[in-house]
């Protein structure tokens, strides 16, 4: 039964990476869009694409935590004790991101807009980096079992964590760019579609380079994971590579729709490969999923919730996502402070 819950956990990680990752990646392109004038148009496309589902994707993250602390509490205690710093930075980064995204729309003056815009974009890069570094720390066996604290610094500042962090940022940027090509086409902004297409190609190349370097780093620093990736997870890893290459090819040719699907499959396969390579350990070579598992009663409850979610929540979520993709959801709230601080408020202030 612990294996079934482990699969659910992996699915949650995959879902968060695909939905949340694209959200964070959009922040990366916001950060690199250049000065206030030059970056205005790409930023408009980006805002449109993440506005309506404001921070809703963090639900998946909460879900990951809930599964970890109910089903594998010992591993959860070890992880939170050891990786306190990057986890806390990620938590604060998530709040900062939401806050600055809302504030940026509120302020009119360019200088203030820049401050909040920078905070939004920086936290969009910081959070996936921390998540990747955390994954690297866990995957390279730096989190000790038994609810004990490992090295508070070396556990997330190490070769595998750096690769994990950079790869997470790059993959998020890649996913986002591919989505943004699609969004820009929907808005009939052909030059913006081209703008993001070039960036999607570039980030795809960067991801390939990091992944190649990462293979050598894993060989030296995270041997268990490397061995897993080259044996039981090899098929999935190859699938990821093939889909990534296919997406790149389609992007170069300008076939956005197919590229988007292949890019998602490539990222999903990469994360599944990580999970398969790490199996049967939740903390590699220290603690297996079955040893860390909570009593059967708890696991049953979690699986019941998952089954209910599949019946009750999934259809609704799919409906929402479709509505969002068609641009049918209203965006409430964020425009309104802009309203408040513009006309009326400024008039009153100047009186």
């Amino acid at each position, binding site marked *: 039964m612990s294996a079934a819950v482990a699969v659910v956990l992996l699915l949650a990680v995959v879902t968060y990476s695909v939905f949340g990752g694209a959200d964070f990646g959009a922040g990366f392109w916001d950060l690199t869009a250049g000065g206030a004038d030059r970056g205005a148009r790409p930023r408009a496309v980006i805002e449109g694409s993440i506005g309506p589902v404001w921070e809703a994707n963090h639900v998946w993250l909460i879900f990951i935590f809930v599964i970890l*602390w109910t089903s594998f509490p010992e591993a959860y*205690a*070890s992880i939170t004790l050891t990786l306190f710093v990057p986890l806390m930075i990620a938590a604060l980064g998530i709040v900062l991101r939401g806050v600055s995204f809302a504030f940026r729309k509120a302020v009119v003056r360019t200088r203030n807009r820049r401050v909040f815009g920078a905070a939004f974009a920086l936290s969009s890069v910081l959070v996936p980096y921390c998540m990747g570094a955390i994954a690297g720390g866990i995957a390279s066996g730096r989190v000790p079992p038994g609810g004990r604290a490992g090295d508070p610094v070396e556990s997330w500042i190490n070769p595998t964590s750096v690769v994990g962090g950079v790869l997470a940022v790059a993959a998020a940027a890649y996913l986002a760019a591919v989505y943004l090509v699609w969004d820009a086409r929907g808005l009939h902004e052909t030059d913006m579609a081209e703008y993001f297409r070039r960036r999607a190609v570039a980030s795809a190349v960067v991801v390939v380079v990091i992944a190649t370097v990462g293979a050598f780093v894993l060989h030296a620093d995270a041997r268990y994971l490397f061995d897993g990736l080259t044996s039981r997870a090899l098929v999935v890893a190859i699938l990821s590579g093939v889909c990534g290459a296919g997406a790149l090819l389609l992007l170069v040719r300008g076939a956005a729709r197919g590229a988007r699907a292949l890019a998602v499959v490539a990222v999903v396969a990469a994360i599944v490969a990580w999970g398969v390579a790490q199996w049967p350990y939740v903390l590699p070579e220290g603690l297996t999923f079955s040893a860390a598992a909570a009593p059967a009663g708890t696991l049953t*409850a979690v699986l019941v*919730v998952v089954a209910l979610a599949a019946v009750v929540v999934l259809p609704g979520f799919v409906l929402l996502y479709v509505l969002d993709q068609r641009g049918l959801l209203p965006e409430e*709230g964020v425009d309104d402070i802009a309203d*408040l601080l513009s006309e009326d408020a400024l008039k009153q202030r100047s009186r």
Partner: protein
Amino acid sequence: MLVTFDGMAAFAAVDPVPWARAQMAFTLMFHIILVPLGVSWAFMTLIANYRAVKHDDRDALLLAQRWSKYMAVTFAVGAVTGTVLSFEFGLLWPRFMGQWGAAFGVPFAFEGLFFFTEAIFVSIYIFGWRRLKPWAHFWTGVPIVLAGILGSVSVVAANAWMNAPSGFTLNAQGAVTAVDPVKVIFNDAMPLQAAHMVVAGYLVGGFLVASVYATGMLRGRVDRYHRLGFVIAFSVAAVATPIQMGVGDSLARWVYTNQPVKFAAIELVPVTGSDVPETLLGRLNDNGTVSGGIPIPGLASWLSDPSTGRSTVVQGLNTVPADAEPTVQQVDVVHLGWDAMVGLGTLLFLLSAWYGLSWIIRRRMPASRWFLRAAAASGVLAVITMEAGWIVTEVGRQPWIVYNIMKVQDAVTVNTGVWISFGAVVLLYLAVGVITILVLRGMSRRFRRAGGFVEHDAPYAPSAPPEETAPEPQEAVR
């Protein structure tokens, strides 16, 4: 350089216990303000929505549409602050989660399900104003109400479990070897604690929303729209308030029976005895005597068990072993929190009674400006009442995190930099608070500007859509 670094490291190494408690308390007390809105606003919106469709009431329709949009904003803020809480369980209390996650965590799995449902239907409900038939649309709001109630029941079940841990088996080493999820969720403290929180959601949410319309009426916006907004919200609060007094009374008696130390702190009882006075205000001294305050002879004993009256014995703080004793400070905080909750709760009850009597006798809400002034203050007062109650239940459990089983100091993280994260959290949350209020005010002003014409219009009169965000209201009321 090395000396400086060591100095800085020593400076940064601060006992994590008070800071972890402070951070958890701060983030929870922030999040709990959003909870009543998430729990009860959808219900109030549906009342307005029902009226709008059933009686072709344009004001009610406008209210329902606007409320649903405010609700979406407070819901989004609640989602972000809730995400932080899920980080904090592990980051601040890793040993608690490691030891008890298999039991304590179970209600959260269900909470996640309800939260997801709520999020989806909030979006569909807002979306549906334009696309769904009026009654179909009304029904898409009902799951929000149910999920809001069940979600908060789940979270409170986890908190109640900390007060009345059950549904698990330990081995000789103290590790959890078996879990009965049903007994974890339906623990002994859960029914009353959950009822107390859900009713609080309706009480606080009602007073909060009503206070906005009371303020509007005090500023001269005395039209049918504002009156309707006030009456719907205040009626919900006025019904919830007497219910809450009954539920709270039962819960206090549960605490008297099951958590005598918390009860002794609540009633400020240093030594076990009968004929215990109800002390209003006052404080505990280091030597175990009580100074200040107004004692009402025998009342605490009488309230604890009316059947035995003033001879009811109330256990005192002196019965607690020294290593399990709450500090004098904690006792004072619990007692003052209790006084604040009961005192303000009583005031809110009197206000509700005024409102109720006016309806019964005069068939209308009180016309006095003093009533409106009190109602305008009721939102903030209700929030303070709820926070005071939360303090009573949380500080009253000290020094335990799992009652009589695990102490807070054994649950906390070993990381000594918590004071830094506490500072960062406070700063960020202040920004979140400011933004939320700005967004809501901005929406209100925009609505008013766009719909200003309607305020002087006769009710039910057909006219142009009052605002761009609520198109074709006539059609929606078909």
